[in-house]
């Protein structure tokens, strides 16, 4: 059974992310109404849901934030930088309150401290109401709305009740409701636990239309709700109905009409699905176009999705075996069956893997906050610009990409972008820019992180690399190759250790993380102009495009993304370096690893072997095998616990004949050929 508290936590984290993004946007564009509404809704939702699952303190604490955003939304309070910092701090506090419904003494003290600051902030705003009130006068003319509310039959069972909903509506203004049993009510088959109620409501309010939608935030998906702004005639009809139903006295009706007898009652925007006004030829001037209808979404726990993918992978393997069997038996009916099954499994596999694809933008929000906080800490003025947020990537990869990207961002902020003074002195704007972009290129995902900072100091990098024994002083390297040296293990040119970076975790960790995702990372830099790190990744880790090779009866798969070419080699080596065989390749010596020896496969090697040339970063490595079988696309299976640490193997796959093929970890194999790390 799904734990409601766990669901609440998951959703609350999503709402906190929305809040954080909205706040950071508001810092850039103060007064952005859309962001204010998003922030308000995030708080409103957390507050309501927290109360339902027993996080009472969190619900009460969030109430203050919601009130604050309500003040902002109604133009009674403007969010300055200090207020935004306070809300961000509160957002972080809410994250800690999500752990346990019962907060400890320290958390309670933090809540009290933050609440006092909210009240002070709102008190100050109320002390200077002139400007705010003027704004309300402009937009705060009362509008009459007719609402029809039909709760779902399961409303009571789901924990939702029309009574508190109507009570919340009453809080927005003058509210007159009539609730009846629905037409479908059958006295002889009455189930008291199912909801048979229908409400019609007249609401006269100066609150913005969004406030009405917010009332239904938890039930909008399941209940039928229409909201219609009323003009003269429709208002008359509605009040007549209420008088007839006894919900409105004739005197109250007249008073209402008087209150609304202002020139041209402002026309609101019907909710999506609301009936159009009779005789309307089109949307009212200035009306927002209705939100595009979106397909309903279903939230699924990660474990279930992983289980589905595992089973799809098994099915793909089974299909390959069926195909193999058809070929072996030369059975036409079996062939046809295998072909049909192949078509279905391919479709199923693509759909299943597509479910796990997420837009990379879901991680961008986290980086914005990081850049904001770190740049303040470092006394720098830096803005993060993002592009390609909707580029999709396998969730598994997205999760594992977070840390390397954070490390790169920290590095750019700490070492790349100069202080405002240094930038101005260099003729640059005081504010530095970080650009994080993502996009697809030839079936792979390209992520770039660029800054307009000082750029890399090639001479200093080379000197440091020589000093650390990473390269020989006489190695001919161009500027680009020198820059790649910063990815070498242990490399660091930072003269100081700061809180932000330089903690001994080098760029080599970034590189190995990216390579473990079957990706590659490169860096480009121009002195004085900035640095750009480019990360290239496959779209998923679940399927691999590989080259199948054979050593005796054993099969191995080399990821196709690193394969450069295949060459014939003989048993004779052109030389040895540190016990590693070297072969001649395109005029230079290339380390070559014989898989037969590496994996201790018994038996003699053929006279003429094949070597698959793979690229690891900027270097080449030969993998010598008996034969190259060909292109092979397959589903990657994890290694069991027993084989997990096997060097040079990243996973396994099951072939059509039921045999297992190992998928090679080329970066790890390459590392084994470089015991002295010399060049």
């Amino acid at each position, binding site marked *: 059974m799904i734990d409601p508290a766990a669901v609440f936590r998951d959703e609350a984290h999503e709402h906190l992310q929305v809040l954080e993004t909205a706040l950071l946007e508001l810092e850039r564009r103060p007064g952005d109404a859309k962001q204010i509404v998003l922030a308000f809704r995030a708080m409103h939702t957390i507050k309501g849901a927290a109360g339902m699952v027993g996080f009472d303190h969190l619900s009460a604490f969030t109430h203050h934030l919601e009130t604050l955003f309500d003040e902002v939304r109604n133009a009674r309070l403007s969010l300055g930088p200090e207020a935004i910092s306070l809300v961000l701090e509160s957002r972080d506090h809410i994250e800690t309150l999500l752990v346990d419904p019962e907060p400890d003494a320290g958390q309670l003290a933090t809540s009290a401290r933050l609440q006092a600051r909210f009240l002070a902030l709102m008190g100050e705003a109320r002390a200077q109401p002139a400007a705010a009130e003027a704004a309300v006068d402009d937009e705060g003319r009362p509008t009459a709305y007719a609402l029809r509310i039909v709760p779902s039959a399961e409303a009571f069972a789901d924990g939702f009740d029309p*009574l508190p909903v109507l009570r919340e509506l009453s809080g927005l203004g003058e509210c007159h409701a*009539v*609730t009846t049993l629905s037409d479908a009510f059958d*006295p002889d088959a009455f189930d*008291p*636990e199912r909801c048979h109620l229908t409400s019609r409501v007249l609401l006269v309010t100066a609150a913005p239309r969004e406030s009405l939608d917010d009332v239904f935030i938890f039930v909008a998906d399941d209940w039928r709700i229409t909201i219609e702004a009323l003009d003269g005639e429709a208002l008359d009809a509605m009040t007549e109905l209420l008088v007839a*139903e006894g919900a409105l006295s004739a005197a109250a009706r007249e008073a209402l009409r008087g209150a609304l007898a202002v020139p041209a009652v402002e026309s609101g925007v019907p909710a999506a699905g609301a009936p159009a006004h009779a005789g309307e030829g089109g949307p009212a001037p200035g009306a927002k176009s209705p939100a595009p209808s979106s397909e309903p979404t279903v939230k699924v726990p990660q474990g279930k999705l992983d289980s589905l993918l595992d089973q799809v992978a098994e099915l793909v393997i089974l299909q390959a075996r069926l195909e193999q069997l058809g070929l072996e038996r030369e059975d036409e009916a079996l062939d046809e069956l295998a072909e049909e099954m192949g078509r279905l499994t391919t479709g199923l596999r693509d759909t299943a893997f597509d479910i796990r694809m997420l837009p990379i933008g879901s991680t961008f929000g986290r980086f914005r906050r990081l850049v904001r906080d770190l740049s303040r800490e470092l006394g720098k003025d830096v803005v993060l610009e993002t592009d390609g947020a909707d580029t999709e990537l396998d969730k598994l990869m997205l999760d594992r990409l977070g840390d390397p990207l954070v490390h790169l961002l920290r590095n750019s902020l700490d070492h790349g972008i100069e202080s405002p003074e240094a930038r101005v002195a260099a003729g640059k704007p005081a504010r530095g820019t970080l650009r994080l972009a993502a996009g697809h290129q030839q079936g792979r995902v390209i992520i770039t992180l660029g800054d307009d900072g000082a750029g890399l100091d090639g001479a200093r990098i080379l000197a440091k690399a020589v000093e650390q024994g990473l390269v020989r002083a006489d190695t001919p390297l161009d500027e680009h190759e020198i820059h790649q040296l910063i990815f070498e293990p242990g490399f660091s040119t930072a003269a100081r250790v700061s809180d932000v970076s330089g903690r001994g975790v080098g760029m080599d960790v970034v590189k190995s993380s990216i390579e473990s995702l079957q990706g590659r990372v490169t860096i480009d830099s121009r002195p004085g102009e900035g640095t750009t790190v480019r990360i290239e990744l496959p779209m998923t880790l679940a399927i691999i495009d590989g080259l199948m090779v054979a050593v005796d009866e054993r099969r191995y798969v080399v990821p196709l993304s690193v394969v450069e070419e295949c060459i014939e080699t003989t048993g004779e080596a052109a030389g040895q370096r540190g016990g590693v065989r070297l072969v001649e390749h395109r005029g230079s010596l290339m380390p070559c690893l014989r898989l037969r020896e590496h994996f201790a496969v018994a038996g003699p090697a053929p006279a003429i072997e094949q070597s698959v040339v793979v690229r690891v970063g900027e270097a080449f490595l030969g993998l010598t095998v008996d034969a190259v079988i060909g292109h092979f696309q397959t589903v990657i299976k994890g290694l069991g616990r027993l084989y997990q640490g096997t060097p040079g193997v990243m996973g396994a796959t099951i072939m059509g004949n039921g045999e297992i093929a190992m998928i090679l970890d080329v970066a790890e194999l390459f590392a084994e050929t470089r015991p002295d790390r010399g060049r």
Partner: protein
Amino acid sequence: MEAQTTTPRDWQAPAALTIYDVAALERDIGSLDPAAGDWRVDVSAVRELDGAGIQWLLALQARLESIGRRLTLTGGNPLVSECLACLGVSHRLAAPGEPCEVSDD
């Protein structure tokens, strides 16, 4: 059809009239007998009331009306009055002549 004049059935509503109680209440009242007369439901003891409770009262009233009987709420209770007013059913469930309040008799 003109309803027969019989002694009203006085019924004391329990402290809780909520989604957790309505199924049991429905079982308890059994089938409605026209001979039992009109219903007077004393809500003075009600301390918890939700939409399901109010719906049950509305349904009871509708079924009584279908057999020519009436339901009247008695026993002034601010909580009940507030809930009925909020949902907009005061005029349906309140005593005659007191459209927006629960009768105090």
